[in-house]
């Protein structure tokens, strides 16, 4: 049996839903990304505490009517891709929430 994966939104990312599209911007290098609908659901559900397979089952399979096993494989690949760009954090343990960048104290 494969280990559970946990995903969390990177605190170094700014994100906003504009119309139908989710825009995210990396604080490092100011790179702007547009997430597709599946990536948007994954991003919104990535709380660091819910295992990826539960996110797929509850949020992705119900919304996109896809086969659970295939959806999990796709979600793992998608999460790895988003992590590569610094958008998501992935761990085999629950990920503690971190202070978002906008809440840091600065004059």
């Amino acid at each position: 049996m494969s280990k559970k994966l946990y995903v969390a939104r990177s605190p170094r990312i700014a994100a906003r839903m504009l119309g139908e599209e989710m825009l995210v911007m990396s604080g490092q290098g100011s790179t702007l990304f547009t997430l597709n609908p599946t990536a948007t659901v994954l991003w919104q559900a990535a709380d660091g505490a819910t295992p990826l397979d539960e996110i797929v089952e509850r949020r992705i399979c119900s919304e996109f009517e896809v086969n659970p096993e295939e959806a999990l494989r796709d979600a793992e690949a998608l999460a790895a891709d988003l992590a590569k760009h610094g958008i998501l954090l992935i761990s085999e343990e629950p990920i503690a929430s971190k202070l978002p960048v906008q809440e840091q104290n600065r004059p």
Partner: protein
Amino acid sequence: MPGLATQVERYSAVIGIGGIPVRVNTTDPDFLDLLHNRYAGFVSAEDRAEFEFDVDLAPPAVDDPNADVSVRYRTGRWFMERGDFRAEWDPATHTGTIHQTANPYSIDAVLRITHTLVLAQQGGFLLHSASAIRNGKAFLFAGVSGAGKTTISRLAPADATLLTDEISYIRKRHEGYVAYGTPFTGELVKLGENTSAPVAALYLLAQGPENRIEPVSAADAGRELLANTLFFAEDPELVHRVFQAACDFVHRVPVYRLTFVPDARVWEMIQ
């Protein structure tokens, strides 16, 4: 017995851009004249200033204004560097120092960078766009180099007040935004008028075979606004603030694509 210390005369100019007065101090009267000429119309007669820079006129290690700009926040201060200047600014004391030669380009860059840092904290930004006031409303015309900022500025009718042909100054005010004139010029090499008005619309410029105004999706508006926003700091918190400011702006201000032929009739659509 001769004195051990020599008193050095200090000269100051208060340069007010976007309603934010910045005092620039120098010991060189010729540099003061240069500032008065460069920022004509933006030099304030008042002594009050929100920020202050001492300019140290000294040759930099490398004199290359085309080098990349570096803007970093360390130990409570902003450090700005390009081939032709080195500057630091303390946002807590509102004071800073600029090391540069006696030229207008270096201090221009430092002022632009400083204003982007200040505006980012307030939900505003500098935008690569021409802007003008007509009928008491400000209109922004954004686009990359060659999109038509200078052309639409040159075509502006007599009843339009040009705020800039290159870099617009946008401040958040209550539920809306206000555009201010800037001395930052493009190909027109004409300083904007030092005045302001509420922003009525942002037009994303494109040149084409006919004059046409089309709506733009919120996501496209956000992407293009961010692509045209001036921002230099390699700093996640400031990047976050600028991103949110751009998203807020496209929620509150109508954004259109303006395709135009380069003649004066395009201004019939801008009211």
